[in-house]
C-alpha cells in the first residue's frame, strides 16, 4: 500500500503531460482529466481507509535518510483532503465540458488544470517544509495561469492583485524556510519540531510569524484577504469553483500542519493574535457579503468569512478544535464549490447584467433546489453538514472558554443565514421581469450532474455526520499530540 501515497500527485502530473501532448484534441484532454480525477478520488478513499485501519503511511522518496529526503506522509487529515481534491477535481472537470470556451483547451487549459490538482495533492501529502513551499509555488503558478487564461480586462485586473500578494506570501514563506534551515539544519517537519522544542529561540518565533503571514495571505485572513474578492469571481465558473474549494483551504491546512508539528509552543504565544484575526475575518467577510449585489462576489466574501471559523478553531488549538477544522474543511470545500458552480449556471440562465434573475424556482426547480441545498448548507441548517461544522467549532470555542470569539462566530452564522436567505428570495422567489419570463434553454447534463452531485454530498455528509465526526475527532487527537506523525516522519533517524 505504501507506494499508493505518491499516486495522488503522479496521476494529475501524468495527465498534465499527456494533455500537453494532445493540445489539439479537446475530447481526449477531457477524458484524461476525468480519468485522473477519478483515480485521485479512489486513491484518496483508499488512503483514508488504510490510515483508519492501519495508521499512518509515510514514504521517503529515493531511500534517502529522512533527514535529507523528500518525505510524503498521510494521516487522517491529509487523506480527507486528498479525497476532497479528487471529488472537487472530478466535479469541476465535468463542468468544464460545457463550462469553458472550447478553444481554451488548445491553449493548455487542461495541463494547468491538472497541474493545479497535483500541486494541491503534494501540499496535502508532503512532510517537509521545502516541498510544501514547492507545492505552494505550483499552486500559485497554476492558479495565476488559470486566472489570467483568456485575458479579459477584468481577469487581468484581478490576476495582478492576486499574483502580487501571493508572491509576497511566497517570499515570506521562503525566508521562514531559510531561517528554520539555519536553525535546525533540516527541512523535515518532525525533525525541525524536535530540534526547536524546549529551547526557545528568537529566530523560531520570527520564522513562525513569517509563516503565519504567508499562510494568512494564502488563506485570505483579515487583514490580508482583499485579493480574494478582487479575483475569484473573474475566471470561468469551473475555475472559480475549484479555487473556492481548494486554494484557501490549502493555506488553512498548511497552518495546522506546520504549527502543530513544528511550533506547538509558538502557537500558544500567537493564539491571541490568531483569535483577533479570526474574529475580524468572520465579521468582515459577513459584512462584505452583505454589501455585495453580485452573486459570485457575495460568495467570494463568504469564503473569507468562513475561513475565519477555521482560524478561530485553530486559535484555541484543542483536540476538539482540530476535529472541528477538519469537518469544517470538508463541509466548506463541498459547499463552496457547489455554490460557485450553481452561481455560474444561474448567471448563464439569466443573461442580464445582474445575477439576480428572479423567479428561478418556477423556471428551473432542479437548479434552484441545488442552490437551496448549498445555501442551507452554508447557512448551517440541520441536517446539512454546515450545521455540524459550525456546531463543532462553537463547542470547541465554548470548551476553551473563548466566549467572545464564540459570540462573534454566532453573529457570523446569523449573517450567513441572513445573506443566504436574501439570495434565495431574490433569485428563486421574486417574480421575474419580462426578460426572465422567457423559458430557459436546457441546462446541459455535464453541468447538472456535478452541481447535483455536490449538493447531495453536502446533505450526505450532514446525514452521515457520525462516522465523519468520529474520524475527525480521532484526527483531532492526533493533531493535538502529533507523536505518531513525528515518529513516522522521522523514520529511522534518531
Amino acid at each position: 500500500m505504501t507506494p499508493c501515497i505518491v499516486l495522488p500527485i503522479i496521476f494529475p502530473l501524468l495527465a498534465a503531460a499527456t494533455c500537453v501532448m494532445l493540445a489539439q484534441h479537446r475530447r481526449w484532454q477531457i477524458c484524461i482529466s476525468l480519468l485522473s480525477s477519478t483515480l485521485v478520488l479512489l486513491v484518496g478513499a483508499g488512503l483514508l481507509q488504510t490510515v483508519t485501519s492501519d495508521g499512518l503511511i509515510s514514504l521517503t522518496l529515493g531511500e534517502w535518510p529522512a533527514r535529507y529526503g523528500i518525505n510524503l506522509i498521510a494521516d487522517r487529515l491529509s487523506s480527507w483532503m486528498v479525497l476532497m481534491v479528487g471529488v472537487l477535481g472530478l466535479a469541476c472537470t465535468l463542468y468544464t465540458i460545457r463550462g469553458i470556451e472550447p478553444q481554451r483547451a488548445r491553449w493548455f487549459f487542461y495541463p494547468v488544470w491538472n497541474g493545479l490538482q497535483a500541486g494541491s495533492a503534494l501540499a496535502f501529502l508532503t512532510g517537509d517544509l521545502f516541498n510544501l513551499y514547492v507545492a505552494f509555488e505550483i499552486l500559485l503558478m497554476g492558479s495565476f495561469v488559470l486566472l489570467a487564461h483568456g485575458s479579459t480586462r477584468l481577469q487581468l485586473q484581478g490576476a495582478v492583485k492576486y499574483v502580487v500578494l501571493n508572491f509576497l506570501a511566497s517570499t515570506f514563506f521562503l525566508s521562514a524556510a531559510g531561517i528554520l534551515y539555519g536553525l535546525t539544519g533540516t527541512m523535515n517537519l518532525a525533525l525541525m519540531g524536535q530540534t526547536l522544542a524546549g529551547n526557545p529561540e528568537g529566530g523560531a518565533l520570527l520564522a513562525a510569524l513569517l509563516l503565519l503571514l504567508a499562510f494568512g495571505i494564502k488563506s485570505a485572513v483579515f487583514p490580508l484577504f482583499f485579493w480574494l474578492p478582487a479575483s475569484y469571481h473573474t475566471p470561468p465558473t469551473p475555475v472559480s469553483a475549484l479555487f473556492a474549494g481548494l486554494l484557501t483551504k490549502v493555506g488553512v491546512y498548511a497552518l495546522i500542519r506546520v504549527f502543530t508539528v513544528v511550533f506547538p509552543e509558538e502557537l500558544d504565544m500567537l493564539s491571541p493574535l490568531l483569535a483577533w484575526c479570526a474574529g475580524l475575518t468572520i465579521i468582515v467577510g459577513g459584512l462584505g457579503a452583505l454589501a455585495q449585489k453580485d452573486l459570485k462576489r457575495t460568495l467570494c466574501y463568504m469564503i473569507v468569512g468562513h475561513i475565519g471559523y477555521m482560524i478561530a478553531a485553530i486559535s484555541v488549538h484543542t483536540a476538539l478544535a482540530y476535529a472541528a477544522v477538519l469537518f469544517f474543511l470538508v463541509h466548506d470545500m463541498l459547499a463552496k464549490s457547489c455554490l460557485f458552480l450553481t452561481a455560474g449556471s444561474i448567471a448563464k440562465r439569466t443573461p442580464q447584467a445582474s445575477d439576480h434573475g428572479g423567479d428561478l424556482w418556477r423556471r428551473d426547480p432542479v437548479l434552484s433546489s441545488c442552490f437551496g441545498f448549498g445555501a442551507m448548507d452554508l447557512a448551517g441548517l440541520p441536517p446539512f453538514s454546515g450545521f455540524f461544522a459550525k456546531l463543532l467549532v462553537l463547542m470547541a470555542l465554548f470548551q476553551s472558554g473563548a466566549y467572545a470569539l464564540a459570540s462573534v462566530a454566532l453573529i457570523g452564522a446569523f449573517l450567513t443565514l441572513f445573506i443566504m436567505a436574501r439570495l434565495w428570495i431574490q433569485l428563486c422567489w421574486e417574480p421575474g421581469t419580462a426578460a426572465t419570463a422567457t423559458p430557459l434553454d436546457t441546462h446541459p447534463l455535464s453541468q447538472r450532474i456535478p452541481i447535483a452531485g455536490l449538493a447531495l454530498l453536502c446533505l450526505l455528509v450532514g446525514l452521515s455526520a457520525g462516522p465523519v465526526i468520529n474520524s475527525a475527532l480521532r484526527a483531532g487527537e492526533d493533531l493535538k499530540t502529533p507523536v505518531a506523525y513525528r515518529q513516522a516522519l522521522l523514520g529511522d533517524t534518531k
Partner: protein
Amino acid sequence: MNSLIFKTATRYLVPVLLVFAIHLLLRGHNAPGGGFAGGLVAAGGYTLYALAFGVTAGRRTLRVSPECLAGGGLLLAVISAFASLFAGKAFMTALWFKIPMPGPGYLKLGTPFFFDLGVFAVVAGVVLLFVFSLMEVKE
C-alpha cells in the same frame, strides 16, 4: 532577420550549441550543468535558428512539436521515477546499470539520467513553445 552574416554564423553556431547542450546534460550528474541548463542552451540554439531563418524553418528543424517535447519530457521523468518500484525499492530510488562497452570501459547508466533527460526535454519544449508562439504573434 535578413543578414547574410547572421545566417552564415547561425549555420555554424547551432550545431555547436546543441553539442554543448548535450555536454551540459551529461556532465550534470557530477558537475555544474544538468538537464535544466542543457535544455535552456538547446532551446537557445533553436531560437537562434528560428531568428535567422524564420519560425516555420525553426519548427521544421525541430521535427517534433514543442508541445510533444515538453509533454514527452514530463512523461519520461515521471516514468523514470516509477522504475524503482519494479525493483522493489522506494519511489524515485536511483537505479544504476553498468553496460559493458567494447574495449576496457563500461557505460554507467541510471534512472537519474532519464529523469534529467526528461527535464532537458521539458525545459527545451516549454521555452521553444514560448519563443515560437511569440514570434508567430509578431509575424
